[in-house]
Structure formats: C-alpha cells, structure tokens
C-alpha cells in the first residue's frame, strides 16, 4: 500500500525541516539525518495504513527524536560516558516542544551543508537528495542505478567529511553564502542534467530527477528570492525541461533541436522560464546560469527553427566565452558562428580547437564538424566524422543518431 501523491509531496517537504529541528536539538547532523531517514521510511510504511497524522511534522520529529534517544542510550551503555545527547535524554524536563525549535532558515542551512565544497559531487548529490529532497536511500540508488547499500555508504561518508570539516550547523554569513552558493547551484544543476539525460528510453521506474532538481531549486529560490543566479538556474531548468517531450521520436531516437516538433514543447514552463529570466537579468549581473538560460530562451521563443535569432545566440556565446570559458562553450560558439557567418567560418573556428587536448578527442567536436562538412558539401568528410563521433560517444542514443546520419549521407 502506497502513500498518495499529495502526502508524499508533504512528507518530502517536511524532511529537511525535521532534519533541522533534530540537528538543532541534538547537535549531531549526521545522526539526525539518519534518524530522520528512518522516520521517513516509517511514515511511508505506516501512514498508508493508519492515515496521515494530524500533525505530520510533529509525528516525524517525535519518531526521529525517539531514534536519537534509543541510539544515545545504547551509546551510553556502550561507552558509559555522558554526552550532550545523554544529558538531554536524562533531562526530566524533556518534552517534545515541537514548534519551538524550528528555524525558518533550516532548509537553507541544510542545503549549504549538503553541498559543501569539501564533498565530491556524487556524494553531495546523494546527500542533498536525501536530506533536503526527502528521498529514500533506495529511491536515490535506483535513480543512479547503484545498489542501496552503496548509496547509503556514499551518504554516510559525505556526512563524515562534513563532520571532519568542522563546519557548524548555522546559516553561513552573507559573504560565506556568496562564496558557497556556486557549489550549491552546481549540485542542483548536475541533478537536473542527470535527470534530463536519463529521460529517454525504457523507464525502469526511475525517479524523475529533473523534476526533483526543479523542486529543490524552487525551494532554494524561495529561500534566496533576490539572488539572480538562483533565479537564472531555475529559468534554465524550466526552459530546458520544456523541450523534453520533443527530444525523442516514437522509436526513442534522438531528435536535434532544429527538427523537434515544437508543438510538443511545454508552453507553461517556457513562459515561466522567460519570466524568471527577465527578473534575473533585471538585477544587473550576468552570470553563468542566466546566460545559459538566455540562450535556451532564444531557442524556446522561436515558433519554428527557422525563426531562431541566431545572431543573438552568437552574441550570448561571446559573452559566455568571457564569463565562463570552456571547451564546450567554444564549441557551441563555433556552431552559432557557423549559422550566422556560414559553415566555413565555423570549421575555421573549430580548427583552432584541434590543439586543445580537452576537446580534440571529444565526440561532439567530430559530430559538429561532420554537420558543418555536410553543409559545405564535403560528404566524405562528413561521413568520416559522423562515424568517428559515433565511435567516441558514450551515449547509446547519440551513437545511434550519429551512425544513422553517416548511413543517410552514404546513401545520398
């Protein structure tokens, strides 16, 4: 028997708040997070049978607190040494003052804690999805196709790293927040990308990570409403997610942007994304996510591929090259230049990348060149590069697409 969608949403929403309360009360983030995870699983099991409690947050706090006390008691029994937790346990005045311990900033603190720069991205992702996202270890393991025990270990190690770093469980100062926000946004961005990438093919009941990332970013935005980078990231996610239904055909084949059926694009997500982007850009600063969102917006605003304002995209890539240069940005810039100034220009720009080891062997380099060779009429070179790209890509849908392009050209 399963929990209905509304209750599940509520449960996930409460999770980080409860982690906040328990951490604050018992002063041990790692154990608190474990205790809350157990309370969550208990809720998933019991609530469908017994009904949703009148005070769901109180219920979770109570169950998690009991876990903490049980742990503490066996800890005391083992060590025979008083700890702060033990003192709490012994306190006769211990009552579950449910609302008193809540701090509205708890979810934000949790986000900064879980996305700590000392963590590897895979552990930050796992911990964030559990502690802030309220997902179960099993769900996260399933989403990334690793065993539950492995995912549990990733999360446990992540918390050990946090403990070792000595970072206190409090809201970072405004200055610290600015320094550490990029790490938070990066984790959310990675979760979205993972989700979007896997939105193809046989859905073996995998969690919709893209939706999770959007939900977490919305949450972050509500906690940092004036931050243009957060708003920009949310805009980018919505403007990209909007195209999801059109990116694969009936046979699960990949459909490039210029050939997608735009009637399948989610207009609601696009208009929300555009609105958010306008807000973000109005704040004056132009950061990485706002720029990427702006590029996505130019694509999404075009009713037909032919209507796309490529000169604007080119200008945006020129800006992006300055703000956040990378081989992929250079590659995308060359694509835009090819559209605006002709494929020969694009090929010329790509020749400059030949000597960059980070990109020279990358499949996208070959696939873009193949596309441009086709446009200038050099069929042989196009076929050769499509085949090379097909060999190098590690994505099966991409490989299929590239092989099919080579085959198509061979027949023409």
């Amino acid at each position, binding site marked *: 028997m399963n929990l209905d969608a509304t209750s599940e949403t509520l449960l996930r929403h409460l999770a980080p708040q409860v982690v906040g309360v328990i951490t604050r009360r018992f002063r041990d983030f790692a154990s608190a997070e474990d205790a809350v995870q157990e309370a969550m699983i208990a809720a998933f099991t019991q609530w469908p049978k017994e009904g949703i409690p009148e005070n769901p947050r109180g219920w979770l706090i109570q169950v998690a607190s009991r876990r903490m006390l049980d742990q503490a008691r066996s800890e005391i029994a083992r060590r025979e040494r008083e700890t702060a937790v033990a003192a709490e346990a012994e306190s006769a005045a211990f009552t579950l003052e449910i609302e008193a311990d809540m701090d509205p900033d708890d979810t934000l603190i949790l986000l900064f804690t879980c996305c700590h720069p000392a963590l590897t991205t895979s552990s930050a992702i796992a911990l964030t999805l559990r502690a802030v996202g309220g997902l179960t270890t099993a769900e996260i393991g399933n989403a990334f196709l690793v065993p539950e025990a492995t995912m549990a270990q990733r999360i446990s190690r992540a918390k050990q790293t946090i403990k070792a770093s000595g970072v206190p469980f409090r809201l970072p100062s405004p200055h610290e927040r600015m320094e550490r926000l990029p790490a938070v946004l990066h984790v959310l961005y990675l979760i979205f990308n993972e989700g979007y990438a896997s939105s193809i093919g046989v859905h073996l009941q995998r969690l919709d990570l893209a939706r999770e990332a959007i939900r977490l970013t919305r949450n972050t935005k509500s906690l940092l409403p004036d931050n243009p980078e957060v708003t920009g990231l949310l805009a980018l996610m919505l403007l990209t997610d909007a195209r999801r239904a059109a990116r694969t055909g009936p*046979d699960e084949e990949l459909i490039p942007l210029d050939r997608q059926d735009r009637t399948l694009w989610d207009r609601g997500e696009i208009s929300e994304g555009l609105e958010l982007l306008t807000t973000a850009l109005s704040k004056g600063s132009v950061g990485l996510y706002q720029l990427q969102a702006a590029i996505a917006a130019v694509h999404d605003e075009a009713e037909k591929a032919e209507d796309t304002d490529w000169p604007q995209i080119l200008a945006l890539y020129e800006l992006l090259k300055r703000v956040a240069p990378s081989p992929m940005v250079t590659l995308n810039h060359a694509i835009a230049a090819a559209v605006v100034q002709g494929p020969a220009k694009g090929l010329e720009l790509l020749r400059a990348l030949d000597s960059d080891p980070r990109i020279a062997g990358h499949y996208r380099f070959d696939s873009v060149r193949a596309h441009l060779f086709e446009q200038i009429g050099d069929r042989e070179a196009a076929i050769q590069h499509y085949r090379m790209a097909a060999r190098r890509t590690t994505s099966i849908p991409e490989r299929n697409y590239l092989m099919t392009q*080579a085959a198509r050209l061979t*027949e023409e």
Partner: protein
Amino acid sequence: MKYILMMNTMKAGHGVPGWPKKDLQAHIAFMRGLNKELHQRGELVSAEGLSFPDQAKLVKAGKDGTPVTDGVFAESKEFLAGFWIVDVDSPERAYEVAAKVSAAPGPGGAPLNMPIEVRPIMSGPPPEML
C-alpha cells in the same frame, strides 16, 4: 535463474558498421523491442552496451601499487560489445533469448547470427567472491 548473455563482436580499430540506414534502423528497433519485451515479461535484470574498445585498457598491478595500463590488444581479440542479465525460469528460456539476440537483423535485414555466450550466474556473488 540468472544468466549473463554476452555479445563479443567488437574488434579494436574497426569502425562502426557501414550498413544502409534502413538496416541500421531495423537493427536498433529490434534490440529496443527485445529489451522492452524482456522488461515487460519481468525477465530483464540489466542490458548494457560498452563503449568502443579504443578506450579499453588492460591493467596490471604495478611495482609500487600504481596500476600499469596498456591499450594494446591482440589483432584477433574480440571485445565484449554488450551484455544482458536475465532472470528466467529455465536454461532453455535463456538460450531462447540468446537466440533472439543472435538473430538480430543486419545488412539486408538478414539475421546476423552473432555468437552469444550464455553463462549461468548466481543471484548474489558466490561465497568465494565475498
């Protein structure tokens, strides 16, 4: 009962098949259809493709604990291209699935008759491996 079905058809340095587009699409559709069927029958545990052997490495223990990697393989070596792990009721069913995989269409739509190696596996690692 679990079985691993292995498709060993790749050779290093060989390119992607240069089949006509129609035949390529038929092959891709066939594999997709097979996986879908296995999934619907509850027999599919996993189906994985591996990246091309250009990136394959042979690793040996180094002197001081650092691994020694080598990308050179015998000319004749066939590489694992992909594998399926299926959970089926009998060995016969495993061979049946393997036969389907083997008969996937190739150029001209003719069955490829690739050799598919079928090995029984335990549901968990065997005691010796733990």
